[in-house]
């Protein structure tokens, strides 16, 4: 038997408003990796470091004149710029031409 007295509901949205986040552009790219200093940013998860090591070996083979510099975030799940090492990280960034980051997931 059908229900002929079905109710009609006018409902409010549960979805919260959020302010738009101001966007920034990413850094300009380098034309070529030859002779450049490549930063390898290694986060805490265990596959990050071996992944970046493989990348370093392969890039060295392709670009023998390229140099590499590592930076390790050792605090799980905490942005490096929120830590006391912020200045160290920013100085490291100034010394490299490009960065490959691996979170580990």
């Amino acid at each position: 038997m059908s229900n002929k007295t079905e109710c009609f509901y006018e409902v409010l949205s549960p979805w919260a408003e959020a302010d738009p986040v101001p966007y920034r552009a990413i850094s300009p790219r380098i034309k070529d990796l030859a002779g450049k200093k490549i930063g390898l940013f290694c986060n805490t998860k265990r596959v990050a470091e071996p992944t970046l090591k493989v990348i370093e070996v392969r890039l060295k083979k392709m670009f023998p004149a390229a140099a590499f510099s590592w930076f390790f975030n050792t605090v799980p799940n905490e942005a490096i710029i929120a830590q006391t090492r912020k200045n160290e990280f920013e100085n490291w960034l100034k010394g490299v031409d490009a960065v490959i980051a691996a979170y580990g997931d």
Partner: protein
Amino acid sequence: MIMLANYGFANDAESASRSKGMPGVRVVSTKVPCESTVSADIEAGLDGSWDDIITALTKPLTTEEKNPRVEKTETPARIVFQGSLEEVNRFFYRRGWTDGLPIIPPTEEAVQEMLLGTDLAPDYLLGQLQSRLGKATVEKVAINAVMAGALPTYMPVLIAATIDLLESEQGFNGYTTYGFSTGSWSPFWIISGPIRQQLNINSGSGSFSPGNIANAAIGRAMGLIIKNIGGVRKGIEDMGVMGNPMKYTMVIAENEEESPWEPLHVEYGLKKEDSAISLNFPQTYLQHYPPGSDATSILQSVIDNITRGMRYTIVFNPSTAKNLAREGYNKEKIKQYIVEKKLVSAAQIKAQLGAVVIPESGLQQSSRNTAEMVPLIKDPRLIRVIVGGGPGAFVAHLIGGGATPGKKEIQKIELPKNWDKLVDKYKNVVPIYAKY
């Protein structure tokens, strides 16, 4: 910079980049298996992405990447839909606004009734909840509370719980880790103080089982708040590998009437007459059966069932708690006993945790001598002891994360002026089982 991510995390990486204001971050999706320790798999996983890595590093920026346009965020109309019960449910489900179970339609009338549970104005902003920094207004809390089937008397609890999430510490030990981690950590709410009885929150037999509206709806409402205000989407921000049924709800009241010890909120410095809510993020719920009812047997069983160097909430049933108290154990002494007696080799901790340094474990104090025996849990403040459940011998452990010891552990619940009247109106909403 380019970011390498397993292809299953590409959406997560994109969401994180956007929420941090850099939507153009070039995410290179790889087939490197998550958490892999096998070199050949890592090598093979990178093979298919190699050209993408070089391109992402060297291809000039597009116009869009140079000048990313801020997209207008969706702001649904206040009245978002009209329809039958079934149509409302289908609409909400398809928008991703439910937990999969049917919801109560949040009509203007129902939300107004819910707002009787607070003196705060509907547009009062409690804060902006991660990950999308959604504005947690009192009205949005009330709307999600209606959907979950909450009663207006739960509003003070839900507001306090939302504040607790908002004030959760940043980083490894806070909501921003446990809400989104691959570990599927689940919010676990402990309510203590007089409000437990006013809301009929179950702290007795089957405390963690379904059947009590307060235990069910408070946890469910907080799940919807995390989803609809925080914008935490399963498989995008919440990357729990296995997921966790405790995310539907995990709420208990401390059984203060049958406890020989002081309640949790008093331990954390509040007055006995205060009410409060406390949050942890366990991954696992475990029960064990002590081989005897004396303190030695009970505590040995507790020790045997502590296997991970993390936070523990131990829920003792009333008779077990009383037996421990009779033999001189208070909460502090139990915690200290666990720290002193649960020793494992440093090598065992390292093997268990892999390369990840868990700050709260004994790992940091382990020496280079991997044979040295160290406490699995080094700080007694990582252990909570409460009394709950009914008659019987089983003891429960909730295993997993929470605040760094010494940081925020509890949130006081503030009551509205009309509290007594409101409690009176809803106090009889309790199940009365048929006799047979």
